[in-house]
């Protein structure tokens, strides 16, 4: 059999292929050794904070920002007798946990909007946080403790679409077609390269047999190890009362016309792999869970404008209703976004300020529509995401409210670079999403209404979607890690920066919660010392 062709010039020989498999064997061996030495994480529990009761003489705590991390601190410290005051510059709690409903203000600077969705419990849009992975155990532990109802978030739906003008003449194809055929072709290639010749090391005969049957089943190959299509992609017709008719294969050469596969095939892996959850009725139900306990401590429209750390306490100056106020506290936990904090007068050490200045801000962008009817359900789609190669990138169908009359769908999500849409006017943004969306759903323009857009880069009091510590995608530099450690430490034992910005995994609620817990544990330990 001729060697597999990769690209134009480079060819993979069978020997190279086997070496590759050998390397995988090596990994397996390393894994075993690793766990024996205790190097691998055990299934960990959520952190349990065991904070000591507050000292009555030193119990005043200022919390800057009613983001999730700030609320976590308020909730935990209130339990043990601290007197917390939360200063929040906007009109609402939750920061980037933002669920938009009927009548809500979307406070984008220069482009304020009021949401006009119908006023019904399932008609909401999670403009910030939307998914909770089952491994985010600290966040989930609070959901349990605060009795927040969760439901499954559907990230991948095999009946949803993928659309690229280069593929299938621009007509959308179903997720199931792309994945079934791509797997079939990949499996056939693998099977050919393995069966072409005697099976020598590094496999025993039985390993080789298992591997081959795995490959066959991965791609649904026939007894000759060829891919001839699969019923996994569903039927062209029949299948219940009549014989099912298999769909035509989409040729590999056709599937290779799109670059989307590399994003698409791993979209439901890692942090966005099953199981994912959402809070029933909107992600801000989590925030509500906290504010049920500490909501009375929040001062809204209270914009912090100076932080002075002193030897015997900490002074916070803030503006509310056009007047200056001063809050004096013993300790302070601060989740104001780093790039906003750099503009707020402070007496932090130079290195600390350097760390704040180092962090860049992300530009994520989302948009949503109210659908007059749940047209996707008529196309067998219930929840999940359709993918487009155009700038609107995604359409999310709601994971709840099945078979109701209307629903809210996400009409665009650019989580990496939302600058394009951010720079547009509201009208241009909406037109772009309609034009993009109708490539998947031909009647889209008539089926959706009441659009909203959320350009995080321009949201008042936020100015970004999440912290970007790394300048390079290669990983953290030594300098970056040092700055991160500087920011994690308190100033004078009194002022802690918190939030997902003080984590190595920003843009997750879990990171915001864990940064708060880290700060609380450190705080408690220092008090004991």
């Amino acid at each position, binding site marked *: 059999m001729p060697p597999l062709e990769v690209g134009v010039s480079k060819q993979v020989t069978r020997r190279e292929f086997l070496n590759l498999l050998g390397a995988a064997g090596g990994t397996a061996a390393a894994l075993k050794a690793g766990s024996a030495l205790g190097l691998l994480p055990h299934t960990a529990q959520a952190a349990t904070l065991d904070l000591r009761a507050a000292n009555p003489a030193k119990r005043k705590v200022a919390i800057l920002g009613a983001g999730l991390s700030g609320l976590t601190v308020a909730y935990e410290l209130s339990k043990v007798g601290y007197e917390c005051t939360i200063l929040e*510059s906007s*009109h609402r709690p939750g920061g980037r946990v933002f669920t938009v409903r*009927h*009548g*809500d*203000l979307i*406070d984008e*600077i*220069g*482009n*304020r909007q*009021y949401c006009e969705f119908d*006023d019904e419990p399932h008609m909401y849009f999670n403009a910030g946080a939307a998914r909770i992975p089952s491994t985010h155990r600290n966040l989930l532990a609070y959901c349990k403790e605060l009795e927040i109802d969760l439901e499954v978030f559907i990230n991948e739906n095999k009946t949803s679409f993928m659309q690229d003008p280069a593929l299938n003449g621009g007509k959308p194809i179903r997720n199931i077609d792309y994945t079934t055929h791509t797997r079939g072709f990949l499996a056939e290639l693998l099977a050919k390269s393995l069966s072409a010749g005697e099976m020598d090391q590094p496999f025993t005969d039985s390993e080789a047999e298992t591997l081959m049957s795995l490959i066959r089943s991965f791609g649904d190959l026939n007894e000759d190890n060829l891919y001839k299509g699969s019923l996994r992609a569903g039927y062209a017709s029949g299948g219940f009362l009549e014989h099912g008719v298999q769909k035509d294969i989409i040729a590999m050469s056709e599937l290779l016309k799109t670059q989307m596969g590399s994003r698409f095939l791993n979209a439901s892996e890692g942090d966005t792999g099953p199981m994912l959850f959402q809070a029933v009725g909107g992600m801000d139900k989590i925030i509500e869970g906290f504010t049920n306990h500490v909501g009375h401590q929040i001062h809204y429209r209270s*914009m912090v*404008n*100076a932080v002075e750390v002193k030897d015997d306490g900490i002074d916070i100056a803030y503006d509310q209703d056009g007047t200056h106020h001063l809050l004096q506290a013993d300790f302070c936990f601060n989740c104001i976004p*780093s*790039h*906003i*904090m*750099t*503009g*707020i*007068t402070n007496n932090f050490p130079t290195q600390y300020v350097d760390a*704040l*200045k180092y962090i860049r*801000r992300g530009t994520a962008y989302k948009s949503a529509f109210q659908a007059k009817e749940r047209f996707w359900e008529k196309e067998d789609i219930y929840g999940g995401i359709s993918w487009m190669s155009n700038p609107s990138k995604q359409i999310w169908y709601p994971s709840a409210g099945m078979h109701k009359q209307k629903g809210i769908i996400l009409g665009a999500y650019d989580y990496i670079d939302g600058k394009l849409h951010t*720079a547009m*006017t509201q009208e241009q943004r909406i037109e772009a999403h309609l034009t993009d969306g109708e490539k998947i759903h031909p009647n889209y323009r008539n089926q959706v209404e009441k659009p909203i857009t959320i350009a995080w*880069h*321009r949201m*008042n*009091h936020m*100015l970004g979607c999440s912290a970007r510590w790394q300048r390079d995608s290669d990983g953290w530099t030594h300098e970056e890690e040092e700055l991160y450690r500087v920011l994690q430490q308190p100033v004078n034992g009194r002022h802690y920066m918190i939030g997902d910005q003080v984590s190595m995994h920003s843009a997750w609620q879990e990171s915001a919660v864990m940064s708060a817990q880290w700060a609380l544990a450190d705080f408690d330990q220092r008090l004991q010392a």
Partner: protein
Amino acid sequence: MLKTFLVFSLCMVCIGGTSAAESEREPFDDRYCTTCHGTDGRGNEGVQAPRLAGMEPWYLRRQLENFRADIRGVHAEDREGTAMRPMATKLTDESIDDIIDWISSWDYIPAEATIKGGDPLRGRGLYGGCAVCHGANATGNQSLGAPALAGQNDWYLVTQLKNFLAGYRGAHPDDTYGAQMRTMVSTLRNEAGILNVVSYINLLSR
């Protein structure tokens, strides 16, 4: 008062949901400058938003109007300008008046020097050309339309000079003062010249 209240509640009863919802809507005004420009408009390097406190009212007005009219902040390479422009697009004349009043209520505190690598001695020589309009002490000159430079954030001055030099700012046909700046800035020649002149401006105070 009581009468108004009664009429109002009656309206809510007869028209139902909408008017009640409207009245409950979160109010807002256009005083959002400090989110980006920092405490009392002293500038925020973290988002590259310059100091507004101490800026002359006539200069603020001209720039806000230029942003609003798509005269400034339109070149794709002008990162900060393109960020600012949409924020000004919907400002009314009244909002601009109000913002300028508000800004004039803030204390002027000169910015700290942050840039490194400039040579102020060489900068002094280069500043001669600037002084004609901006004044020997960089305190500005309204009759020539030249704002004060002393006390402004040095990183902002550097960015703007670079933008003038590259044509990212001041290239719009209606930006008369910008066009003048583009001619003048060519005497600084390059980034080194810009750093030199700004490090000299850092020595001037007002």
